[in-house]
């Protein structure tokens, strides 16, 4: 294999060999690492279904060349829950019915986690809507998605306070 990169995927560092420079991060995850949670909806950065966190930031993995991400830390939807315990964003998506078909959901959830990490939106629903606009949902579960982000953000903040206390 002519190409080898080192990636930390969902907390596990791995050396990954592959034979083609064209492989995107999304296709690497889906077709070569059996991490099929991230979805390919457009393959052109136009829908957000492929959103993952790279070095803590949400990006479209379909427009990321795998080779260029040598040394990166990648978090995918598969690495979000702690065992059987769902991440607060995941739980909130279920509680608020923030999805229907579920295809865009891994991207929505990764984007929501990214948004909360960024910390720019606060609890303002208008800012959350804007910040989640890179994730299309053709089922149009947008109302539930915004409610889920608000709720999860609260839950995370409360958990943080408890930890601090």
């Amino acid at each position, binding site marked *: 294999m002519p190409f080898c990169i080192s990636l930390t995927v969902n907390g596990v560092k791995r050396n990954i060999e592959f034979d083609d420079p*064209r492989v995107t991060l999304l*296709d690497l995850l889906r077709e070569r690492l059996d991490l099929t949670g991230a979805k390919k909806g457009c393959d*052109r950065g136009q829908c957000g279904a492929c959103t993952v966190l790279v070095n803590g930031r949400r990006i479209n993995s379909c427009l990321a060349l795998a080779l260029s991400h040598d040394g990166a830390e990648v978090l995918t939807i598969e690495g979000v829950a702690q065992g059987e315990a*769902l991440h607060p964003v995941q739980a909130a998506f279920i509680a608020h019915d923030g999805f229907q078909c579920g295809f865009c959901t891994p991207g929505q959830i990764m984007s929501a986690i990214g948004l909360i990490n960024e910390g720019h939106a606060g609890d303002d629903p208008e800012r959350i809507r804007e910040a989640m606009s890179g994730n299309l949902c053709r089922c*149009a*579960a947008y109302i539930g998605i915004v409610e889920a982000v608000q709720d999860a953000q609260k839950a995370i903040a409360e958990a943080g306070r408890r930890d601090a206390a």
Partner: protein
Amino acid sequence: MTLEILPQASPHIRHGSNIGQPLTRRDGVLKVTGRARYAADNHPPGMLYAVLAVSSIARGRVKSLNVEAAKSHKGVVDVMTSVNRPKLAQDPDEKSNPFMFRLDLLQNDRVRYANQPIAVVIAESLEAATEGAALLAPQYEAEPARVGLDGAESFVPPGVGVGGPAEIRKGDVEAGLDAATKRIDATYETPSQYHNAMEPHAIVAAWDGDRLSIDTPSQGLAMARGRIAGLFGLSPENIHIRSPFLGGGFGSKGLISGPQILGVLAAKLVGRPVKLVLRRDQMYGPVGHRPPTRQRLRIGVDGEGRLTALDHRAKTASSTFDDFFEAAADISHTLYASPAIATSHEAVRIDIGTPLFMRAPGEATGSIALESAIDEAAAACGLDPLAFRVRNYAEVEPISGKPFSSKALRECYAQGAERFGWARRPLAPRQMRDKDGFLVGWGVGTATFPALMFHAEARAIIRRDGTGLVESGAHDMGQGAWTALAQIAADGLALDLDQIEFRAGSSDLPDAGIAGGSAHTATAGMAIHSAGADAIAKLAELATRDERSPLYGAGNAGLVARNGRLRRRDDESRSESYAEILARAGLGEIEGRGASAADPAAQSTYAMHAHGAVFAEVKVDPDLGQIRATRLVGAFAAGRVINPRLVRSQYHGGMIWGVSFALNEQAIIDRRSGRVMNADLAEYHVPVNADIVSIEALLVHEDDPYVNALGVKGVGEIGVTGAAGAVANAVWHATGMRVRRFPIKLEDVLTPAG
């Protein structure tokens, strides 16, 4: 005691604690953890990747393909063209029933629409297959494309929608118009739209001799299996299709599409499992769309504000090689009372892929035109558009004169208006501004969709331990079948939901019909419920005939099934658990079967429709024309609600499709080449999160004893209707400008300069 004194299963049916509960989705954890496996997530050993090459002309023939260039690209295993495509048992252009659409399966070198598959490249990697397809560099002999509603000679189609007549009339429309004191004569245009489910059509196909294993999203497993069996000359039992999750369908996955079959052919050609996934741009052609329409509406109104005539004429487009004719005008059959109604359709055949059912096919396109025209009529009469609709309320179905099986539309109008605050709406347009100076407008639209039923079967098993297993080849495309049908299944067996295992989404389960026409919950649900009732009836027979059972001889009184026990109806202290009954009978399990179908007697007597009222607020920048739908309230009556949480989500989604219809989505088709120039998700605009500010759905109570025993109508499509018109009417109310070409664009509502 004999079975006949258990009059059918009805004494044992219980509508209990599962139906009606707002349960969260049972597939929720799988979906939020990424463990829900969609078709393209499968990867059998030895799998190859297939990528389509599609035509970049709309009409002509493929002169040549550089197969050698593709094959010499590293990793490419084979190229499938019309020359080497494996033989089929059936001509893809054969059509023996209206639901059998002609497919493009490389049967020749003809090109009949842009993005038609013209070759398939199969390779060891997705990257190689993709580049291989690009290297084919097709050369064409192009012919002039016929484009748009004026692109060819018009004709009256043989049938519209699912075989309805193209023209229907009741009364004398011209006389009604002559007698009117106010008349509306307006023409509306709707664009081509594409389903654009988030999940592109995908298939993973693996042959094992004459057996075929398939992962592909399907809204109609049994029909898909039958179609594949016919094309390949296989016995349907030899084909196994798994479709546990669809990443959205909206009609585009109702019938198996050409590209999916090409995946099966590719696997056959190379003798290895193959995955074929459409690129987003490839979804603008071979997998259906909502065709464009031009609709002329003429409405006459008398001095009392009552319709004297309603004439709705629609022109639409179909492909040159198949028949799908959007029944846009038929919406005018059911909504508003008028002594004279005429609807008619004409069509052109142009060089596009065959249009197909797309969420509320016919109803959505017709609704935005009808609701706009009704609004124009109300304005012409100086009447509030809601009051005008109520004044023309149809007490019986206008076109047929049949009574409605149920119709709580009046309550929808009232509850929706109350919630929205409609009473504060000024009559004249362009009266409202918000604090920032934006024009504000309020509009209303009536929603309607027929309550359909198809045929389905189901199996219910009560196991030795008293738990249940219910099987139905049903489809969850996001509407929530995994949850709602399981709720029905649990009630059918009178068990708690966690006491049953529910299996669906696989072609080896009983045929659940098609998830379309908003009929799946009613259709599959009735079969499931009947299967449960059948199992319980068999169990009851065992118990009541067994002297050792406390239920012995209770057949006359009837039994009640509840929480896994059968009880005497007249003395519930006498009961026995399912497990006890089975154990004593020495049975491992007992199986019930159920089927469902529309009741022809009820259907010939009653008109069956769901209804709703949608109220919309928009804000418009008066100088710059940008529009935002800021608030929608929809009130819907659709019979019994199985799961209000899921139903609300369906209404929300439908209403947002209505917003999109009015303000956003449109295929931009090059007038010369017939190609879609925005075949992506960046320029084909569907609403994003920031477009949707506030959406509320009210569930209006409605009992319907006739649609089916569960009293369920459909909720999946009705939200689109009404909402699109409500938004368009709100734009008029905000700006005073009536835009009749959709979607409404910012330049349409610019206040004139000066």
